[in-house]
């Protein structure tokens, strides 16, 4: 656990999809899907879960901003702060 709940949330959902990959083994600046070996269906599952939990639309047009772990986390921070967020 860290003091960043969004980071914990992202790690938790990635852990569900790729339980065999630990964040310690991942280059958080590199392509998320390569690093976690997840395919497009897994990625949809991840985006769906994050969108539901944070009440974010996660539009497909923004996928380019979700390429790496760091990108995706930064995206979640940006979107959550602009969005009035019911949990």
């Amino acid at each position, binding site marked *: 656990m860290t003091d960043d709940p969004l980071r914990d949330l992202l790690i938790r959902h990635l852990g569900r999809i*790729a*339980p*065999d990959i630990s964040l310690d083994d991942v280059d958080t600046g590199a392509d998320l*899907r*390569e690093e976690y*070996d997840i*395919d*497009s*269906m897994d990625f*949809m*599952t991840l*985006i*769906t879960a994050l*969108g*539901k939990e944070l009440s974010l*639309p*996660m*539009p*497909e*047009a923004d996928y380019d901003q979700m390429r790496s772990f760091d990108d995706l986390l930064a995206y979640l921070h940006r979107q959550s702060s602009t969005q009035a967020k019911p949990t």
Partner: protein
Amino acid sequence: MSTFLMPSLGADMEDGTLVEQLVNPGDAVTRGDIIAAVETQKGVIEIEVFEDGFLDKWLVPLGTKVPVGMPIAMIRASQDPDEPAVPQPADPAPAPPPPEAPQPEDPVAPPTMPEEPPAAPEQPAEPPQELSQPIRQRVSPAARRRAAQTGFDLASLGTGRIISLADVPDATDKPDTEPLSAMRQAISAAMTRAKREIPHYYLSDTIDLTLAEAFIGNYNADKPPDARLALSVLYIRAVALAARKYPDFNGHFENDQFSPADAVHLGMAINLRGGGLVAPALHDADKGDLATLMTRLRDLVTRVRQGRFRARELSDPTITLTSLGDRGVAGITGVIFPPQVAIVGIGTPGLRPAVVDDKVQPRRLAQITLAADHRVSDGHQGAKFLRTIIKHMQTPEQL
């Protein structure tokens, strides 16, 4: 009263272990209800009941390894509540094979055939014999394990005494070889059979996915994540429609003859984390709207990755699709999964130059390959089938 049998979940399955009984004796069951879970080489598979009635009793305890075709439960029809709980001669269910000779239900795989490759040592020594032989052979667990590892035939030691580790010879020829995992054995058995029995021929072409990707992008733009489509759902529908039009690529080849299927149950090759692959069916993949098909695809992939799918999903596919997704390589030439007669492979799409309207343009292109069974069709029909898939992908809004 009828018996509920251990189903065959594919040509390569010989037995399964009953791991869950989801219905209690006396409970009502309806055709299609999942009443048990069976562990096989491919993971835990949920088993459906095929009639309405009541579960009378379980015939084998949890944890029992049961050969394909052996009874595992008694089902009482709604109208005969007072019948005794024994198998009746006029059993409406398919007759179980005689217990002395448990056979896979798949008639193309008679047990006399060396269905397993030499590297699959477990089958010959496993407990199907235990259930079926009148006198149970008593074997210590260590002896059984060594026999399974070395491929030693325990039956050759007879049933007169307890077999201990010392009775089973060491593997002296291949001491460092690890036995294949169950998943690799299952894949090996099916693919060895395919390469041995099926005279494959191969055709390939290029699909222009520019329109299909634009269609998906437009469709998904205003949808929440769980209502979005994946490109693979268009592949599935295009292949299913072509398979419906060209029945020589959709069906099963068994007992020296081809039976075209009257529905398209598309086997979707799904890779598993940690290795292995299964290709369970999306039933009636040619029917319903794309959103529904997508929901079913998501559900199937999720369950498969959790190691849980239904018996019919493994035995029903009539044709297979394997797609490399968007992180793969340019092309894939599949191996047909028997008793099917065709597999369509689609490589990873890439932005490549193509000539459109007399001009070279960047287009999103992918390789598409057909491997089909020469006993059933020829390249001429194969080309028409493949072209039909490609054509459907140019009109995604009509899929």
